[in-house]
């Protein structure tokens, strides 16, 4: 139901979240992301949501929580690949105001590394 695949590029963790993010899978996502972020040499995170098929308000908490974690280490969180449905959830919850949304990975990496 939910798959998380990650790799790093410099001090940025690139995470692809695939499947459906609801209350049931949010716990899995939270645990996986937090264990990846235990590596303190990672500063930023970019989430690829192009294979995320469903998300409800339980997912909002997952992204806000990781955003706070990264902020504590002066890092940033960016996202790309949002479909219309997921974009709508991000907009009504105000997530798009704290997490920058990009069109693709390259733009995300450029955007996140800008000061």
């Amino acid at each position: 139901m939910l798959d998380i695949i990650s790799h790093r590029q410099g001090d940025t963790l690139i995470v692809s979240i695939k499947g459906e993010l609801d209350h049931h899978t949010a716990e899995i996502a939270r645990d996986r992301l937090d264990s990846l972020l235990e590596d303190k040499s990672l500063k930023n995170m970019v989430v690829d949501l192009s294979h995320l098929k469903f998300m409800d308000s339980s997912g909002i908490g997952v992204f806000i929580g990781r955003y706070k974690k990264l902020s504590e280490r002066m890092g940033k969180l960016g996202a790309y690949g949002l479909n219309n449905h997921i974009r709508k959830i991000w907009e009504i919850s105000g997530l798009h105001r704290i997490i920058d949304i990009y069109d693709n990975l390259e733009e995300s990496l450029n955007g996140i590394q800008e000061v």
Partner: protein
Amino acid sequence: MKITNEMRLEFLSKSQNEAFARVVVAAFAAQLDPTLEEIADIKTAVSEAVTNAIIHAYDQNPGYVEIIGQLFDNGIIVQVIDRGKGIKDVKEAMQPLYTSKPELERSGMGFTVMETFMDEIEVISSLGEGTKVTMVKYIKNSNRTEKPR
């Protein structure tokens, strides 16, 4: 509005059933020939109401969540019913960002999502008895009557 079809579903308040519930309602609504966007809206709203029953209504003792789906000419009525702990102040609960469980990283946006994605919502609740969330979604170009099979 004249009800043309109806379904009832009951399942245990386990988080594994959130996906099951929204897929069932979406499959039922498919009879109205909705767009992909309308289907996504219905799925999301059902997911919110069912999740609330599971984590808020039955947080102490598990119980059954009931869904009643009714189709009418140009839309669907979905009722999500629990017999859990109930809501003390519905108006406060429906405020954006209000959550009684911030420690679980809840966003307090569930009701706001339901309101945004559906056309009508009504919440009836009483403490110790349970909650009923009734939502209506109009399907813009529903044309199943022109396509008898």
